[in-house]
Structures are given as structure tokens and as C-alpha cells.
């Protein structure tokens, strides 16, 4: 991509981006294209990271492991639902990932956890997300019992209106009381350590981001 085009793209994206400055946007665009690889741009073809490529990035760069959660994160990034994360989705997504305010993050996390997108996190959804969270003990009669119990505990903690499911309002209130519950059903944000490493690498080392 030529410099002029990059310049132009940076200009447009910076306007819509809350948390990054021009330099940072520039770096991220470069990183994006280096990740996408050399694809000749043709009309009609979407340039972007597909699900697998994106999941790989999440895993390597942000230490995420849970497949289901990573899928959900992909969906969170892929706003237009076309199966690819394009450059503007990339910038906007990372803006939230790295610099998002608590409000933004809550909104994003809730969307991630609301598997069927009906505006509520139901017991079933919780169960689905938590089912691997307890180590299976051989002596344990029924490990599902434990998960169900854990779901009940979570509900008791977060379901403010006692309707048996979490609305965004329930979730928001619980998180405001205890920020640790932001990622209540699984890590969907980068952990602070990898976040710092990522930023250090991308923003502070302009010459070497290619060989990541």
C-alpha cells in the first residue's frame, strides 16, 4: 500500500476513533496489513482477518484460550457480520480492547456473553459458558451439579430484579458494585499483562512490528 493511501486511511479512521491518536492508528493499520498479508485489492473482495486468523491473534497476542469466548469476541469485532474483521473494525475493536471506558467494556462484554443476542444472559447461557470452569474431580458424582450451583451463585450475586436471568441493567449494576465481575463468564478482554506487552510492541517499536 502506498504512503498516500495509508495517510488518507489513517486520517479517516482517526476521526471515528475515540481512544487512539494518529500515530497509534497508523501503527495499527500497518499491523493489520502485515497480518492480512499481501492480498491484491480487488473490488468486491473484502480485505480482512477471517475467523481463524483472528482467533489465532487473540490466542497468541492476548492469551485467550476459550474457543467459545473467542468466537464471541470475533463476532464482537465483526460488526457488519460478514465473516471478516476489516481495517475499520480492527481499529474500533482494539480501541475498546485497549482503551475502552468501563461503560464501553460493559456493553461489549454483555454482548459477548449474551450468546443468542436476546438482550438477556439466561441460565442456560451461563451454564454453557461456565461448564468448563470447574476442574472435574473423579470422586465428584456429578460435575454438572457444581456448575449449576455456580450458576445459581452468580445469579444470586448479579440478578438484581430476581427474574432468573441477567438483563443489561442487572449486569451493569453488579459490575459497578464490583468491577471484577466485568468478565464474569470468561475472559473476553486482554489480560493486563498481554495488553501492556502488545502496546509496548506495537506503539513503541515502530521499526520492528513486521516480524511479530
Amino acid at each position, binding site marked *: 500500500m502506498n504512503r498516500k493511501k495509508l495517510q488518507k486511511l489513517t486520517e479517516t479512521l482517526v476521526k471515528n476513533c475515540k481512544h487512539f491518536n494518529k500515530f497509534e492508528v497508523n501503527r495499527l493499520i500497518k499491523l493489520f496489513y502485515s497480518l492480512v498479508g499481501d492480498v491484491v485489492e480487488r473490488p468486491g473482495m473484502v480485505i480482512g482477518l477471517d475467523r481463524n486468523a483472528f482467533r489465532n491473534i487473540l490466542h497468541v497476542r492476548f492469551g485467550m484460550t476459550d474457543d467459545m469466548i473467542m468466537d464471541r469476541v470475533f463476532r464482537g469485532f465483526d460488526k457488519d457480520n460478514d465473516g471478516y474483521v476489516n481495517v475499520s473494525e480492527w481499529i474500533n475493536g482494539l480501541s475498546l480492547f485497549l*482503551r475502552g*471506558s*468501563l461503560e464501553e467494556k460493559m456493553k461489549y462484554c454483555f454482548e459477548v456473553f449474551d450468546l443468542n443476542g436476546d438482550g438477556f444472559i439466561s441460565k442456560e447461557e451461563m451454564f454453557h*459458558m*461456565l461448564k*468448563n*470452569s*470447574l*476442574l472435574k*474431580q473423579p*470422586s465428584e458424582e456429578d460435575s454438572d451439579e*457444581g456448575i449449576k*450451583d*455456580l450458576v445459581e*451463585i*452468580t445469579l*444470586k*450475586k448479579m440478578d438484581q430484579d430476581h427474574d432468573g436471568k441477567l438483563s443489561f441493567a442487572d449486569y451493569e449494576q453488579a459490575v459497578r458494585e*464490583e*468491577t*471484577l*465481575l*466485568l*468478565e*464474569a*463468564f*470468561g*475472559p473476553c478482554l486482554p*489480560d*493486563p*499483562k498481554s*495488553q*501492556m506487552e502488545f502496546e509496548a510492541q506495537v506503539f513503541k517499536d515502530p521499526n520492528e512490528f513486521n516480524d511479530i
Partner: protein
Amino acid sequence: MGVALTRSAQWTAAGYGTGKLEITPLNEAILKEIIVFVESFVYKHPQEAKFVFVEPLEWKTNLEPSAFEPGYVVSETIVKSEEVDKNGQPLLFLSVPQIKIRSFGQLSHFLNIAKDAKLKETQACIEANRDPVVKILGSDYGTVKEDSTVLTILDKITKDEDPDREIKVKIAVLLKQLDLHLLNHSLKHISLEINLNPVAFKKDIEMLKRFSGKGEQTVLESIEYTSDYEFSNGCRAPPWRQIHGEICYVMVKPHDAETLCITCSAEGVFLNGGKADDERDISYERQSEVYKDLVTFLKEKSAKFSENMSKQEISFSEGKKMEKYQLEEAPKREQAPTFHKSISGSGKNPLVKNQINFGKNQMTNRLKPSLNWRATVDFKHRKSLLKDSQEEKHGVKLEKSRPSVSTGRGQLLRKYADRIEEIVSESCSSESEECEESPDLRQEANADLPSEYWQIQKLVKYLKGGNQTATVIALCSIRDFNLAQETCQLAIRDVGGLEVLINLLDTDEVKCKIGSLKILKEISHNPQIRRNIVDLGGLPIMVNILDSPYKSLKCLAAETIANVAKFRRARRAVRQHGGITKLVALLDCAQNSTKPAQSSLYETRDVEVARCGALALWSCSKSNANKEAIRKAGGIPLLARLLKTSHENMLIPVVGTLQECASEENYRAAIKAERIIENLVKNLNSENEQLQQHCAMAIYQCAEDEETRDLVRLHGGLKPLANLLNNTDNKERLAAVTGAIWKCSISKENVTKFREYKAIETLVGLLTDQPEEVLVNVVGALGECCQDHENRVLVRKCGGIQPLVNLLVGINQALLVNVTKAVGACAVEPESMTIIDRLDGVRLLWSLLKNPHPDVKASAAWALCPCIENAKDAGEMVRSFVGGLELVVNLLKSDNKEVLASVCAAITNIAKDQENLAVITDHGVVPLLSKLANTNNDKLRRHLAEAISRCCMWGRNRVAFGEHKAVAPLVHYLRSTDTNVHRATAQALYHLSEDVDNCITIHENGAVKLLLDMIGSSDEDLQEAAAGCISNIRRLALAAEKARYT
């Protein structure tokens, strides 16, 4: 002291002669008693103190020769006392490191010199001299034999032809008394330790009962008390057997042996003579060895028992499925520690090895979440067993009896725990090095556990077995419990939650760490939990977290440390793991706040970080070594900077730390240098009571220094202090404020200000109905203020004298010192004196001369001086105190310089009355004063010289002073640098020189030249006295010349 030493003192490995005293509270108490005895020996028995021991007490000392005061010939490695025996041998001889001492007088001097090392020196002495009595009095007086009573000693002594046998008798009797005292004392200690035993036995028996019955898997067939009646002290033995320490008797039927009749006593468990069918009483004779507890005993007696017992122990470690039955089983908590102690203390236990194993077990078991006693038998099975046994009238009414028993026990334990905590915190505040471990006391988990317990147990299970997500959920849920409540705090610990929480701190999961610390921060308010956290090694991990890049983590860790570091061992651990430096570094955060906050999850304001750091430092600063560490880490400038902020939350821990540290000289200097006083004064005006209190407290500590006092005034601190006096509801703050006022009023200018602010009237108003801490300071302040004429009038007019005199009957030593000083200050005013006299204040002061504490004695004696000076008919008044004059004269035997100086001053005033002078002369004031003459303390010299010059006015006293060799040393006083000493001495010499022999002595000691110089002094009294003395000498010379020529 022989018996006590051989019997009660706990020696390590028994080897005689090389033994060492163990460091146990009992030994320490014994040593302390011995120290008190030796220290007071000199004034209680001055005659005996001179007695020279048959053999010297000899040991290795750590004391440096340089520590020895005058009265000793000191060289690089050798110290000799100037005091010698008949043969001219010094009574104290130190050739580093070996020291030999041969009299009680020297011993007590030595202890005075040793100061802080007293305890160690005494220990070394006792260790090196296993039978001190023999060394002191000779081998005839050895008290090792059991039957040696005062009578046998007397017996021996009458046969003795020793010239100083009278003294020997006295000493022997005194030592005997000490011995008895020590024995009584140690008895008290021992009985404290074994107090819990009835409860321990009861617990054991209850436990065993529950696992007894028919069937293969039970441990015993049956176990029963012989008596159903339980005395209020928990014993079941008849009173006449309780005297022997016996607690109860049980009949035990093991599977594989005959019924055993067992005695449970304070000393241990043993088989007795059994119970014959037709008799009511059992035969109490001991038939077996003594075992340390029931279980050990039964393991030894019944193979089946020990087999089934061990099964149960193993099954516990596997027995997950038993969890549901936990409700049925109160965990058996080992009661043994105290019991162990008493056994090992008396050294009669044949099962040392066993005991050690047992101890280990106990250590490992202690931290396990639940029960170390869980039967393999399943619930139903046991129930049927129970039914069986009930049918068979074994009388085990389990359901009914247990809850009541265990709650009772729980209360008892809790009470005990409270007491221990109290003791510990008490001794901590006095900063003794020993206030260390208190036993790990656990609340009894009883049958009616609250529902929280089970919920918490479940959550802890998820903590253990969950991934990060589940862990965070569980952590957040635990926080929903009321963690301020003790049941929840202890539940977390008892289900093994503490280990998990601390382990989480060691992981990389920031969220888990935060969640865990949030819980630890809350539950560490509980003293028991604090100790558990330290025992589990939580502190080093938290100290490491202080380095974390996440500020909220740092904050939480610091806050938790602040809670945990409430006892000495924890504070030491923080220091040893480098925590102080890191905490001080947290204080620095407030400066570089330019970096923008990034992630809302883990960031927090820098001010908050600094606040938490200060909070932790505040806790840590209660240990002296930490104070030093904080200073070395550069904490003072940082604290000074934080002090300039205006957040109350920040200021309280900062000022708290400073106040704590201001007890150190270094800090006070630094506080002055860092201009901290200004800010302390500023914060006195704050609205926050706690902040005001700490500021006042810090000023109180620092205002010993004159410059600081001036600074407080210059920064306008006196007015807010005076204003705070009007609010008397908060006693702690009032104590701090009055303390600050007291110290500030040592400066005259400050007193003037206080008068302006009407503080003196308010202080007088505070003389009644206040706690002692406040009174001490109020009276101290009044004592300083009353140095001023106007204030004395003011105090009198406000009616302050009556309450002051009333306070003279107190017992608080610090208060008495201040009250006597204040009353003395008031007595300078004749009008006030009339009131004091009317209230019988002089008599009260006089009786304080009998107070055991030298400071009180001295202060009372000083106060008497103005009283005698200003009272009407002072002579008559003094004579009216029966035995009063003798008391004063005898105080001249004290070895405290301040007491001596004050008593000399009092004698000077008493001797103004001729009749009284005659009386004290009869009481032997002259030789006693003469004996003091060889001092080099200028204060004492001055008052001594004044007393001598007064006492010369009677009879042949001036001749007597010469005979007692007081004159020559007096001449040397003239070489002192103090003009007060010069004046008093010149006057004394003037009076002494009226006697011919004294004149010669004075002349011989070269006084004339010195006196000639003094005639040139600007002090008229001195001039006159010096001239008078010279004229007396000259007149004698002329007379001598005349005599020669005629």
C-alpha cells in the same frame, strides 16, 4: 532460692553445671523476681548488703568496662570496685569477660549498670552458679535438701562460730523468704498453664464416647465416668483428691482387655487401683506409668484401640464422602498445647518421643480444613450403634449433651483467647522484646454451626477447584458475606480458605489477586486470622505484590499489611522481607501523577496508593526497628510532603506514623528539620477528631525539645491546643491535647500564651472526673505553669489546690510525680501553702516518701521543701509527723541521686528549726551526709553542701562532720564548674571552719587559693562565705603563731 531454682526453673538438657535456662515465661518471671530482690536489697538491708560472700559469684558478662560508673577503677579490660573487703580485695572484679562479685551491694550496683541487659546477666549468673546460696554463705547453708527450713538453718548457725554470723542468719532467712516467694510465684504460673485441663479431658472423653460401642469398628466398647457429678471447676474427682491434681476417673472397656479404671489428673493419665464392686470409692493408688493423655494411654493398653484409631485417621484423608455428615461431628480440636507444656515443664514424662510426634501431628492437623477425627462407620451404622448403646444404658445422651457442652467450651476458649490477646497487646504497647507468640487458639466449631459456614465452605471448594472465571465468581460471592463478623472470618479459615486465598496471591491472575486481597483485607481485622496469615507465610507474598505495576493491587496489599502488622512478629516479618522500603516507596507515588490512568479496572489514584502505604507504615511503626528502617528508607521527607496535603484520610495515617516514630530521638530531630511541626499545628485546626488527636500526640512527643516548643508557639499552635481543652468528650484526644500542653508549657513564653488563652482555668477544671491518662498530663501542665507567680495565684483562685491535694492519695506513679511537683510549685505561695496545710497536704506528701518508686520519693521530697519553707510553725508541723524525721534521714541511704539530692534539700529546710535539727542529729544525719560527700553529681553536691552547712548549727555536728571525713571532699567541690555548688560549698566550709581541726583539713586540701578566687566572684553570698572561711583559717593561723611566740 535453691529449691525454687532446682525445682521450678526449667533447665534445658539436664546436665548439671552446664545447664542453660530455657527461655520460658516461667523462668523469666523467676529471674525478674530475683532481680527485684537484689536491686532492692541495698536499701532494704543496707547492713547485709555489705556482707562479703564466702565465694564470689562468677560468670561471663557481656557488659563493657566502659559502662561502669564512678566508684570503680576502670581500665581497658579490667574493672575493680573501690569498695573492698577487709583484706583489700575489691568486691567486684571484672576481667573481660569474667566477672566476680562478692556482695549484694555490688550485685545490685551491677544490675543498675547493666540496665537493659539485667535479665540476661542474671540468667548468666544463675546458670554459672547453680547453687548461689552455698557460694554466698558457705556450704553449710546449702538449701538443696528438701527439709531445710528456717529452723535447720538456725540450727546450723548457732553451732557456727563465724564472727559475722548474725548477718549470715539474716541473709539466710532473707534468701529463704525469696525462695518461698519464687516458689509461690512459679506455682501461680504453672497453675495458669494447666487450668484448662478438665475441659481437655472432658473433650477427649466426649469424643471417645462417640466412637465407642459394640461392633468391630468402634475404638472402645465403652467409656464412662465413675461419677456423674461435675464440680463447678469441671472436675469430677472428690475435693480431697482434687488437691492432688486429680480431675476425674473413667472406666474404660476396650475390645481386647479387661475394664480399666483410669485416673485423669493434671499430671497426666494413669491406671489406678480400680473399683471393687462392693465399695463406693475407688482405690486411688497409681498402678501404671503416667501418660500424657487418654488417647496415648489407651493406645498403649489396647492394640485394638490403636488399630481402629489409626483407621479413622487414614479414612479421614480419603473420606470425601463423609462431608455431608460433618454437621454431626464437632471437629476435635487438640487441646494439648497447654497440657504438654505442663508435662514437659515438670520433666516427668517418660514419653518424650511420643510427645514430639504428637506435636508434629498437631502442627500438620492444625491447618487442615476440618476434622482429623472422622469415623469410617457411615452415618446410619453409627446411628444404630448409638441406639444400641443407649438401649444398653450406657447413658450416652449424645444429642442432648453435646451441644451444651461444646458451646460452653467454646465460650471458655473464646474468653481465654481474649485474655491472651489482651496480654499480648498490652505487652506490645510497652515494646518489650518478648511480646511474641500467643498460642494459636481456635474457636470451637460446634454442632450448631451457622448456615454461613456451609455456604462459605462450598464457595471455598469452588475457589480451589475452579478456573479463573469460577474463582472470581466465588471470591465475589464470599465478599457478600458479612466479613466483619467473626463467625464468617473463622469459617473461611476453618474450611481451609486462608491457604487458598494466600495461594491465589502467588498466581499471575490479577483479578484473583484483587479478589483475594479484598477478602483478606476484611478478615484480617480479626487477631486470630492475622496470626494465621503470618503462619501461612502470607506476608512475604503481599510484600512482593507491593512491587506490582497495578496500583489497586498495591493498595490492597498495603491495606492488608496494615491490618496484619498489628503484632510484633508480623511487623518483624514485613521488615525482614524488605517491606518497609517498598512501603516507603509507595509514599512517593503521589508526586509523579502525570501519567494518565489507563485501565479503569486496575488503576487507582496515586494519592490512594500513598494513603495505603502510610496506613501500612503506621501499623509497622509500632516496632522500634521498623521506625529505624522507615527513616533509613527515606520515609521522613516523604511523610513530610504528604503532610502538606489536605485529605484527612491521608493525614491520619501520616500523622499517626509520625507520632509513633517521634518516640525516637532521630525522628524528633528530623521532624524539626523537615519543618513538620508547622503542618502538625495546621492540622490541629482540622475538623477531624482523630487527626487532632494524633497531631497533639506528635507534638507531645516532640515538645521535649525546646526549639520545637518555640516552633509550636511561632506557628500559632498554642491557641488551638487551648481551644481543644474545652471539648472533653473524647478522652483519648483530651489526653493527647493535655500532653501537648504539658510539654509545651515547659517554656515560659508558652505559659504566658496559655494564660492569655485562659487555658489554666480550664486545666484546673479538668482536675476532677478525668481518666488517669488525662490527669497525669493536666497536673503535669499545671506543675509547669505554677512555676510562675501569676499562675499560682490563678490556680489558687480557681480552687485548684483542693483537687491537687486530693490527687496525692493516688497510686499511679506518673501521676504522683506530677502531682507532687504541682503541689510543690503551689506551696511557694504562702497563701496557697495555708490551704495545703489545712488540707493536710504536707502529711500526704510526707507519706509519699515511703512510696517504692524513687521518682515519686524524689518528687515528694522536692515538694516538701517549699512547704516547710512557707508553712507557719513549720517546725511544729514537721515534728507532728510521727516517725517522719527518721524516715527522711533514712532516705539518705538510697542510691538514687535524685532522691538523695531532694532529701538533702528537704533536710536543709527541716534543719532551719533547731529542735528538729536536734532530732535528726540524733537519728544520725551527720554520718549519713558525710558518707555521701564523695559524689561528683553537681546537683547532689549543691544540696548536700547546703544540708551540711545547716546541720553545722547544732551541738558538735561540725566536729562530727570532720570526724566522718566529710570536709576534704567538700573542698574538692570548689573545683566544680557550677557556681551554685560553689556558693553552697563555700557556706558549708565557712561553717565547718569554725572548728579548729576542720580548719586544718580545709587548709591542707588547698582550699585557700580556690576560696581567694571566689572572693572575686560577683555572687555576694559566695563572696561573703568564702571570705568568712578564709578569715577563720587566718585567725587560726594567727592564734597558732601567737601561741608559739608566747
